[in-house]
């Protein structure tokens, strides 16, 4: 039986077929034949669908999910032969002596996978899997490929790389690896620690992409304010808050930590109150019974300024905390070098600019009644401890960093930093896992130019006639500083960035100018369709690794090679090692491996991982051996105390990692910039948090004349960005739709289920409408990550909002994914969901209003 048939059978099973398809062994075939021999009705007893392999009859292999979702959970593979028959999740049995079926405590909870994790089997065996190297034969983007041998494909790439480096220099290849295949310690994909970055950097030809689509504004804010992105608490601390303000945060969709949502349920049971500031009444609002404050998108910093005004003018701030730990919060905490300059309090009270940032002033901008701003400020300032969780989404706006900086100011002025039940997030990175098992040395993350990630198309289309600040060129101290890179090729690893970066139509134009596009992925993607060469990559079930928690969570999960790689797929590490050999630096790139690695990776990967575990033992006091860890499948740490960011700074006086050692409301670094064009940011950024008008918003009446709606593009729960878009089980649970407020929809004559076109000057897309009272008027919502599907007129029929987004980032690098004005109209064009809707249940979303 060939691989495709096995896959098809494994997935399209009725239960009676399970064994025939999934295993196909002689023994089971015999069992199948004997099944119906008796014609007498059998005494009815379970299991009625036999032959059916129960879990205990299958081989059990603990592993984990893999993608870049904000969490990391356990998966337990149940396999027969080399086929995964089903997946379950943590049930308490895989963590050593204190475990056991059902073991699930507040101290050591199970790591239960979400719907995406549970659907992995259908991703692993999907029809979209890439099984062989492919070389493009049609026009770029046309999607025509032919199968190639590994030798031919690798030689082709190696040759092209040499040509481009020789002709165009060390900038010619753009690294667009990202975290789509990440969060292992060995097979990593990202810009800093990724395998691709090390490969291209070592080759001496790499332009890197420095801004992070998800949270660059937040990263910037935390670095400026706290000097680190490790501003997060572990998820269990959330059970200890008395008030949790979810600012643009929807933990029911976007998990941040393995069990944060569950600890918040415990907090609720212990009397914690919840507030949601968001244009949408999310499932988090309903599950935590939150007070919903709808807010105009991209105006969050104004509302926060109004709250700060109320806190200052009523003396509700924690002045002792301010005096001891902050710089520039008020005139009294201004450093010597900034005496007489504007402090944050000066700005809020309007002493310099003549505009007090009163709740009324804020209300006119953000649309929240001034009374609600006052009420929330009062609640936040008086409830101790209170967690203001400043989520990433409002930062994905033009000037989004001001929202994050303003949030940090509120967290500091109320003294909620470094205290159990409080919160300084931000980025939310908490306990620091031991992250890297492959050689991370002087060759890692070498780059010859680094640009804001969303400016690549602008760069390619306008080269060489642009200024460094247009592309956010990172400064260097050598003669390459300020040199505009001539990018001629792109490498993708764990990345569907073409589908995910803003303003796709501009990217399509830029794509035409490139000489080389290489895509490593496990499945075909919209990006892959634009590649010259597709390398089939083994999924995390088909390679050996260890899974890290994602920013929160104190545990490691072993991730063995559960099954052999399908087709001819190889790991990224194998592919880059072999390419490196062909380019002459294979031994430096992968020092533990010989050339045989391309065919036999087990021993080398094992060696890297067991050496890495020694680091875990030494640095983190892991008290079990590598062999024991592998046998258990998971290792959950008990930390000496609940991990709260900056607790030592507050309790023991350890300095913050900022230049001043304080929480820098006034940023030393920003205050001392004289020439912004020579910074990576390119444009001025205030040294204290300030409300800054976004590129466009509901307050821009002129722009609204043509495009009256503000589109936001949050993360979906049924995808991790674009990953899982092709999974039928998940497609059954949602529509890719545009959510419209009921009153707006009535004005436009739109009902739920109508097909509408959403458009602006940058693009057009077609998708069904969902009409609801749960979103505020003037705002429409489309979840990011749908797979682009352009028709002949360039209209996206799948509903990918990135045909509408703007590729102009915020100065600090934050992507402006949520700063989009659009218009809507009913259309006769049909929506193409990308899968067979007729195959599903009658009411597949299962939704009703009462």
């Amino acid at each position: 039986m060939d691989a495709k048939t096995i896959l098809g059978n494994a997935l399209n099973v009725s239960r009676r077929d399970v064994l025939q398809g999934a295993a196909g062994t002689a023994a089971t075939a015999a069992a199948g034949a004997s099944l119906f021999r008796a014609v007498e009705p059998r005494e009815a007893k379970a299991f009625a669908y036999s032959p059916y392999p129960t879990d205990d009859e299958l081989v059990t292999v603990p592993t984990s999910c893999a993608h870049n979702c904000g969490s990391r959970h356990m998966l337990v593979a149940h396999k027969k032969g080399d086929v995964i028959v089903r997946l379950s999740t943590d049930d308490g049995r895989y963590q050593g002596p204190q475990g056991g079926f059902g073991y699930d405590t507040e101290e050591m909870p199970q790591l239960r996978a979400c719907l995406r994790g549970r659907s992995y089997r259908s991703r692993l065996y999907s029809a979209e899997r890439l099984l062989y190297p492919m070389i493009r034969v049609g026009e770029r983007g046309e999607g025509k490929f032919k199968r190639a041998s590994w030798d031919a494909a690798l030689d082709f790439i190696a040759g092209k790389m040499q040509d481009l480096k020789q002709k165009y220099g060390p900038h010619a290849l753009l690294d667009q690896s990202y975290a789509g295949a990440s969060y292992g310690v060995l097979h990593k994909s990202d810009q800093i620690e990724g395998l691709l970055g090390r490969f291209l950097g070592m080759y001496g030809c790499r332009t890197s992409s420095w801004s992070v689509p998800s949270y660059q504004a937040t990263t910037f804010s935390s670095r400026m304010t706290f000097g680190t992105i490790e501003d997060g608490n572990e998820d269990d601390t959330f059970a200890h808050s008395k008030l949790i303000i979810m600012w643009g945060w929807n933990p029911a969709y976007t998990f941040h930590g393995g069990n944060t949502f569950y600890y918040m349920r415990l907090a609720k049971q212990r009397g914690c109150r919840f507030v949601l500031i968001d244009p949408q009444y999310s499932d988090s609002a309903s599950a935590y019974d939150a007070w919903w404050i709808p807010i105009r998108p991209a105006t969050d910093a104004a509302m926060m300024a109004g709250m700060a005004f109320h806190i200052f003018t009523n003396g509700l701030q924690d002045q002792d905390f301010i005096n001891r730990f902050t710089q520039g919060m008020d005139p009294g905490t201004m450093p010597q070098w900034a005496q007489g300059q504007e402090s944050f309090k000066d700005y809020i009270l309007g002493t310099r600019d003549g505009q007090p940032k009163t709740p009324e002033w804020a209300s006119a901008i953000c649309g929240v009644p001034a009374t609600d701003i006052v009420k929330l400020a009062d609640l936040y300032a008086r409830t101790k401890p209170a967690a203001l969780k400043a989520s990433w989404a409002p930062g994905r706006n033009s000037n989004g960093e001001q929202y994050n900086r303003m949030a940090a100011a509120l967290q500091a002025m109320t003294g909620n930093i470094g205290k159990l039940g409080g919160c300084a997030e931000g980025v939310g990175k908490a306990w620091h896992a031991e992250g890297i098992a492959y050689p991370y040395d002087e060759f890692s993350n070498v780059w010859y130019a680094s640009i804001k990630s969303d400016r690549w198309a602008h760069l390619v289309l306008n080269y060489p006639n642009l200024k460094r600040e247009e592309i956010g060129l990172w400064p260097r101290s050598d003669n390459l500083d300020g040199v505009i890179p001539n990018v001629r090729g792109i490498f993708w690893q764990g990345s569907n960035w073409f589908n995910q970066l803003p303003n796709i139509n501009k990217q399509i134009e830029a794509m035409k100018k490139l000489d080389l596009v290489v895509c490593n992925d496990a499945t075909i993607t919209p990006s892959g369709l634009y590649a010259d060469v597709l390398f089939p990559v083994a999924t995390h079930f088909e390679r050996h690794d260890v899974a890290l928690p994602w920013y929160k969570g104190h545990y490691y999960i072993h991730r063995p090679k559960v099954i052999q790689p399908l087709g001819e797929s190889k790991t990224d590490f194998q592919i880059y090692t072999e390419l490196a050999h062909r380019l002459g630096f294979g031994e430096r790139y992968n020092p533990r491996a010989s050339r045989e690695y391309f065919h036999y990776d087990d021993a080398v990967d094992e060696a890297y991982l067991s050496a890495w575990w020694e680091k875990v033992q030494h640095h983190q006091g892991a008290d079990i051996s590598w062999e024991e860890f592998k046998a258990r499948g998971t290792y959950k740490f008990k930390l000496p105390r609940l991990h709260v960011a900056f607790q030592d700074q507050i309790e023991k006086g350890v300095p913050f990692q900022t230049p001043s050692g304080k929480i820098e409301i006034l940023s030393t670094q920003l205050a001392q910039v004289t020439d912004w064009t020579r910074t990576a940011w390119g444009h001025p950024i205030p040294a204290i948090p300030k409300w800054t008008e976004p590129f466009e918003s509901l307050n821009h009446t002129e722009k609204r004349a043509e495009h009256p709606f503000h589109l936001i593009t949050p993360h979906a729960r049924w995808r991790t960005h674009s990953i899982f878009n092709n999974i039928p089980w998940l497609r059954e649970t949602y529509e890719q739709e545009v959510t419209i407020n009921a009153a707006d929809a009535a004005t436009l004559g739109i009902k739920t289920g109508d097909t509408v076109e959403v458009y602006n000057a940058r693009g057009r897309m077609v998708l069904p409408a969902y009409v609801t009272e749960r979103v505020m008027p003037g705002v429409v919502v489309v979840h990011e990550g749908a797979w682009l599907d352009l028709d002949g007129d360039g209209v996206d029929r799948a509903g990918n909002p990135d045909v509408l987004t703007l590729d102009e980032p915020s100065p600090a690098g934050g992507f402006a994914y949520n700063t989009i004005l659009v218009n809507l109209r009913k259309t006769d064009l049909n929506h193409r969901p990308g899968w067979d809707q007729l195959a599903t249940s009658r009411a597949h979303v299962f939704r009703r209003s009462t």
Partner: protein
Amino acid sequence: MEEEKKARVQVAVAARKRKGYTPVTPDMQLGFVHNNVDCIGCRACEIACKDKNGLPPGPRFRRVMYVEGGKFPEVFAYKVNMSCNHCAEPACLPTCPTGAIFKRTKDGIVDIDSSLCIGCRRCEAACPFGAPQFDPISNTVMKCNLCVDEIDAGRKPYCVMGCMMRVLDVGPIDKIRDGSYATKAVGPGERVVRQVRNMANPELTNPSIAFVAHPKGKVEG
């Protein structure tokens, strides 16, 4: 195989006519409990179930219903999560012409012997809760069997073990109803009800399910 099945079914139909239908009173009745309020609607339970049972798109043993209402900005939302309720008096069971549907005496689980199912879909029409799911590929009706293999192995069904918020659980329904069953699905001070808004009258089949209802999802009585 088809011939063999045909013969088996013929024998079964004859036996069914001869014997008729005697209601089963189980020694103990298992049932589900779901917290409508605390559920975040993530549907991990649904997908765990699809994977466990190897289902193609279409049949959906467990269904999380999203309910919403109110007027902006005074809105509310909650979730009602249901699979097969393994009713005390299952409406599906007597409708089955081949006797494929049965109820276990041990724990009251209602299941379908798929080797006897002829895909007539009478049970689908009879069930007030939409539990039986027709699969056009196998031309049979299938439904939740409470992961009877897991139950027999001393564990809990996949949906329950997959619940990220720990708001779905399974247990002896009598104890769930009288509050004596220890479960994370029911929070401190919360009580369970037999029926929520827009749900069929439980008097029809006496479904083995209990809910922590949302204030807006409560029904009189």
